[in-house]
């Protein structure tokens, strides 16, 4: 450029920021329609992100408040003795509203039928429950019973004794009028609730019953509600030491959730996953738009460079422009997302069994806008830094669009920034760096696999295309590797979207499988125990006679562990290097015997043996954790003391027990042939469909087998089942929603390739290509792109969902290939359709018109 007239340009001039802004604006003016398309891609990406986030926050809140019905209050404190003065003082001060309850087992008398029955009396004072209700028939009874000498009685119990509302019930020395039938009660998920049916009475009459005297066994519970946003967990942990000293313990919604069901943890993990995938979808949407946008701008940039714009100025002009576009797109996206989140629950209200509150989540909106901006800039940087390398000569070499960035060191900086961004975001979602790193590596791997696939596709099609093929096929394939091809960018964006959609789908299927497993109709909800061997057949017969299934019937023998490899409790105590837990010897083992494994068990070591050989050592199967506790492996010798009889056994197999399945599980399982004569009791599990059946069944059992105790889990499982059912719906809904937004992002990222093919299609048409030919060529190109990326995406999804299932959700993995195949066809079809829609303009209008409008 030594002799060029531009020599007098001052290259050291200061950067004029105002001018840069003006240029950024001017440049954008050139083709607003096209700009709109790009912005729309950002809008969809961010819209998806904001909508998913908002829904997620709302749903999380909804589920949390639902979960509060597990205890019915923010905090409950209970113990089995009267609190001392110091504790009483504390209890009087805690919370903004408090209730108290005394509960104890007692024999009550139904005066009309003169039947007595063991119940769990709960004397209540205050406004408990604060979350959920005492659901009664008639409805108002749940609240009004506290006003007089009234009682609420468990529904099954009412049916069992044929009692009616307004009958009287004698508790201790006092007679209460039954004012309502109790259908559901919050806070009844505890173990104690199941032992006996519940009867609620107002606490003011408790003393008069005469049941509270020296020697009475009473449980004292205190329930607290906090109005403001107190951190209950922290508060409770602070109280723990004091409570423990006083012999009391506490329950919070969080601790109850943890103890009650894994589904809550699964749900929050799933929602994190959804959030993460929403972000990545946003990234795909925004990044592919920006990338193509900048590539299209190369000519303008080159012209500007010819006019004397410095490389750094060009860079800044477009950085400003992209920031502007990113901001507009993100704000619009946030609006769209919020709109969707507001409208959708309303539209779907009738179909969803859950109410999703439609509050506006400013957190989600803020996150969406900031993320949109950051993603725009971050992903624009890669093509933007190449702007610095666009020389004015590029005006002349327009056909060669490859501006090599391969040697630009800044490229690596951008890569690192992108990686850092994704990792730190993953950290925000997951909460630990190892997991975040794992996720980022996974994403990078997926990205690489897709890039490599695209690269291989380019290489192979180039070799593959033969002149003997028809014109259309040759063109269609050639489009994949010719200059100005879109193979890499589309493969990556379609592939990643497919991978995300498919991963979500697969994980959702697995989770739903788990949740339905737990709420399914044929789960045991009634347990009969203390069945004597002689009664076993008769009880099972009676159960079947009543039309109820015998879901499980197991003998239980109590025994103690005497020796582990010859070491007794005393040895274990002396020698800690044995690593045998001392408590293992103190424990009373409930053991069963059978000849086969159950569905919930899996042998992880050794070999299962179902039959003992007479006169030989007995092969037993040890549960994994039990084996660890006694530091034993396959082949080790254990001596069990079966109520006075020593049994020499060895561990023939180690089992993994899947606690997710509802069945009776045991630490130690004996083979058949040794314990048949040992003292044992039998346990029977059945499922009762409703309270009426439950009542008549219980009546029949109690009449015939008075020693058999029955636990009706109906009331306990009601609350839980409902909650789990809701969690199932939330998972389905969120994944459905995310999958749809994923598809929209996919559509929009294919859509932005519109202008890439227009020039060529128009040229083809001018040269005499028929509409049919162009149509076929485009269809072929998009078909190959769509099919290959979808396939690669699905393979990635299967891998990633396996990893997620195994390491994040800890659940068994299975793929249902039919829906996966459907995903494949849908995505391929979508890609082809959008590709064809993209070139519709070219096909329908005369070439000249298009050439003029798309100069």
């Amino acid at each position, binding site marked *: 450029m030594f002799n060029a007239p531009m020599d007098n340009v001052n290259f050291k001039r200061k950067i004029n920021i105002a001018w840069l802004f003006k240029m950024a604006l001017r440049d954008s003016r050139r083709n607003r329609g096209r700009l709109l398309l790009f912005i729309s891609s950002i809008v969809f990406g961010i819209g998806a992100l904001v909508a998913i986030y908002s829904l997620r926050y709302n749903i999380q809140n909804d589920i949390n408040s639902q979960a509060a019905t597990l205890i019915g209050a923010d905090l409950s404190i209970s113990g089995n003795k009267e609190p001392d003065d110091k504790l009483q003082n504390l209890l009087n001060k805690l919370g903004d509203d408090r209730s108290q309850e005394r509960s104890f087992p007692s024999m009550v008398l139904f005066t009309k039928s003169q039947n007595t029955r063991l119940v769990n009396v709960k004397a209540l004072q205050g406004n408990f429950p604060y979350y959920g209700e005492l659901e009664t028939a008639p409805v108002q009874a749940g609240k009004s019973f506290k006003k007089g000498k009234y009682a609420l009685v468990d529904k099954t119990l009412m049916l069992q004794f044929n009692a009616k509302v307004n009958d009287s019930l004698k508790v*201790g020395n006092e007679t209460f009028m039954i004012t309502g039938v109790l259908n559901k009660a919050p806070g009844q998920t505890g173990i104690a609730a199941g032992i006996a049916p519940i009867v609620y009475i107002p606490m003011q009459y408790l003393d008069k019953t005469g049941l509270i005297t020296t020697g009475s066994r009473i449980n004292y519970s205190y329930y607290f509600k906090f109005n403001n946003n107190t951190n209950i967990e922290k508060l409770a942990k602070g109280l723990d030491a004091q409570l423990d000293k006083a012999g009391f313990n506490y329950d919070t919604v969080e601790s109850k959730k943890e103890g009650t069901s894994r589904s809550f943890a699964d749900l929050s993990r799933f929602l994190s996953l959804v959030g993460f995938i929403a972000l990545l979808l946003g990234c795909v949407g925004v990044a592919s738009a920006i990338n193509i946008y900048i590539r299209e701008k190369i000519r303008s940039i080159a012209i500007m460079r010819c006019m004397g714009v410095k490389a750094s100025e060009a860079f800044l002009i477009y950085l400003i422009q992209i920031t502007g576009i990113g901001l507009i797109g993100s704000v619009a996206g946030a609006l769209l997302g919020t709109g969707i989140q507001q409208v959708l629950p309303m539209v779907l209200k009738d179909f969803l069994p859950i109410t999703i509150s439609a509050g506006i989540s400013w957190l989600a909106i803020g996150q969406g806008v900031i993320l949109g901006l950051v993603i725009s800039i971050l992903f624009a940087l890669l093509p933007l830094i190449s702007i610095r390398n666009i020389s004015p000569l590029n005006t002349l070499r327009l056909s060669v669009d490859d501006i090599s960035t391969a040697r630009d060191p800044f490229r690596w900086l951008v890569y690192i920034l992108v990686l850092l961004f994704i990792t730190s975001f993953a950290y925000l979602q997951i909460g630990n760096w190892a997991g975040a790193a794992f996720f980022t590596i996974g994403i990078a791997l997926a990205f690489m696999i897709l890039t490599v696939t695209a690269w291989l596709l380019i290489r192979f099609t180039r070799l593959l295309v033969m002149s003997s093929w028809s014109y259309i096929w040759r063109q269609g394939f050639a489009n994949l590797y010719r200059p100005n091809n879109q193979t890499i960018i589309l493969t990556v964006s379609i592939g990643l979207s497919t991978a995300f959609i498919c991963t979500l789908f697969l994980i959702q299927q697995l989770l739903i499988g788990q949740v339905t497993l737990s709420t399914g109709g044929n789960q045991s909800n009634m347990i009969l125990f203390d069945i004597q061997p002689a009664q076993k057949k008769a009880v099972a017969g009676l159960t079947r006679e009543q039309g109820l299934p015998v879901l499980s019937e197991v003998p239980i023998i109590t025994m103690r562990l005497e020796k582990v490899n010859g070491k007794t409790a005393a040895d274990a105590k002396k020698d800690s290097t044995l690593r045998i837990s001392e408590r293992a010897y103190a424990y009373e083992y409930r053991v069963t015997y059978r000849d086969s494994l159950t569905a919930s068990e899996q042998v992880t070591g050794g070999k299962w043996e179902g039959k003992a050989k007479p006169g030989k050592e007995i092969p037993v199967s040890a549960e994994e954790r039990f084996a660890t506790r006694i530091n034993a492996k396959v082949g080790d010798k254990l001596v069990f003391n079966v109520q006075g009889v020593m049994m020499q056994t060895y561990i023939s197999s180690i089992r993994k027990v899947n606690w997710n399945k509802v069945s009776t599980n045991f630490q130690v399982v004996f083979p058949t042939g040794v314990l048949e004569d040992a003292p044992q009791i039998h346990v029977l599990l059945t499922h009762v469909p409703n309270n009426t059946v439950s009542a008549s069944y219980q009546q029949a059992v109690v009449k015939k087998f008075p020693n058999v105790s029955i636990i009706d889990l109906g009331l306990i499982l009601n609350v839980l089942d409902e909650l789990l059912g809701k969690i199932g719906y939330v998972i389905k809904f969120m994944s459905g929603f995310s999958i749809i937004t994923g598809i929209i992002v996919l559509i929009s990222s294919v859509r932005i390739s519109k202008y890439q093919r227009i020039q060529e299609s128009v040229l083809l048409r001018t040269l005499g290509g028929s509409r049919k030919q162009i149509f076929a060529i485009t269809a072929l190109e998009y078909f190959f792109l769509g099919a290959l990326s979808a396939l690669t995406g699905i393979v990635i999804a299967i891998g990633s969902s396996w990893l997620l299932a195994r390491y994040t959700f800890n659940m068994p993995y299975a793929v249902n290939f039919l829906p996966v195949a459907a995903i494949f066809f849908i995505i391929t079809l979508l890609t082809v359709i959008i590709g064809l829609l993209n070139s519709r303009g070219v096909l329908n209008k005369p070439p000249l018109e298009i050439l003029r409008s798309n100069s």
Partner: protein
Amino acid sequence: MLNKFQVVAALFLSITFAGCGSKTTSNDTQATDTAKIAASKPTKSILVFGDSLTAGYGLDDPSEAYPGILQTKIDSAKLPYTIINGGLSGETSAGGKGRINWLLKQHIDIFVLELGANDGLRGIPVKETEQNLQTIIDRVKAKYPKAKMVMLGMQVPPNMGATYASDFKNMFPKLATKNNMALVPFLLQGVGGVRALNQKDGIHPTAAGDKILANNVWEVIKGIL
């Protein structure tokens, strides 16, 4: 899901074996080392047949339960008796009926019956418990007609209701008289309802409480040894 079943499992476990209690961990000596007893010098044997109270539920060392303490008393009195601890946590009278034959395989000179507490806590009709206990007594009598018998009385907490509580309490003297058994009116005398002598669950005695239990039994049993 979770732990729904764990809830269930814990449920029936805690009930079956804590019948007298509500914690899941436990501790028990069942007829410990019958073999050992058989191998030792020919002495007379006392079978204490009972539930978690006999088994020593929740104690660090099952020998701290009252049968163990009785054994020390017997040993220091140089009496030729060995106690077989036939306690099993959570045992009901119906369970005992099923289990007694297993224990009667060994010779018994004195039979101490401590069952019924779990029946009481579960509200099983007193008549039913009474029948089961009678069957157990009959079986012992049939096998070892010469064995001396001791009945350990029990009461249920007053919150169970006055009628049930008194019916339950009266069942033991009634059975004792009918079967000509020595009677300890209330095994937990001086311990039941006293916080300091009971474990956290409020029903199982601590090691200190068990000493009092042993005294209650010793007062009656020393006369027939």
